[in-house]
């Protein structure tokens, strides 16, 4: 069965303390890996799409990378406003048109 596993479940950082979030996946045919940010009580907000191993995308303090089995979201010098839940999702090549989400990593950045 297709799965998306994110770790850690929660991460507490001090402002300026860089770290990485992990997303491992098992799908029959990857058609894209996505990162979303979700604030409490809100819908997820799109951040990045990655399609092939070795690909990287950057946006402000965030950088997403992709290997054949996992993706990392690197957060450099985070600020309190980066506090949110970060969701990883994959679109599979078979089994219909659906995007499968992981459970997310809750990030807390303290000033």
């Amino acid at each position, binding site marked *: 069965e297709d799965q998306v596993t994110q770790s850690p479940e929660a991460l507490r950082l001090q402002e300026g303390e860089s770290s990485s979030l992990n997303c491992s996946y098992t799908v029959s045919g990857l058609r*894209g890996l996505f990162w979303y940010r979700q604030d409490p009580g809100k*819908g*997820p907000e799109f951040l990045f799409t990655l399609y092939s191993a070795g690909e990287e995308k950057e946006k402000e303090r965030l950088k997403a990378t992709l290997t054949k089995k996992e993706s990392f979201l690197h957060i450099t010098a985070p600020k309190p406003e980066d506090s949110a839940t970060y969701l990883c999702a994959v679109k599979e090549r078979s089994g219909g048109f659906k995007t499968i989400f992981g*459970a997310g990593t809750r990030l807390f950045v303290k000033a």
Partner: protein
Amino acid sequence: DAGVTQSPTHLIKTRGQHVTLRCSPISGHKSVSWYQQVLGQGPQFIFQYYEKEERGRGNFPDRFSARQFPNYSSELNVNALLLGDSALYLCASSLGLAGENTGELFFGEGSRLTVL
């Protein structure tokens, strides 16, 4: 431009009742997907519709149904509500089917359903 709009934002129902949730996609988007998000978990796929046809279905019972209208808006219906149906129901729109473009989903703010 307006984003994805959902209604109602909050609602309370009792077990056994029926609920209808509504979604209007971003102008020009032809695909609508529905997700259920239980507190502390990631969104779970329920349905995807494109050009008024069902193009994907998740592992949900037949109590869940949906449809898409000619203007691309959509409704999610849930019959015989159970306590476990309490969740945030998210609607997402995209330009086309999965894989035809970047595949990114644009989400609404969700409908918070509480079943008592």
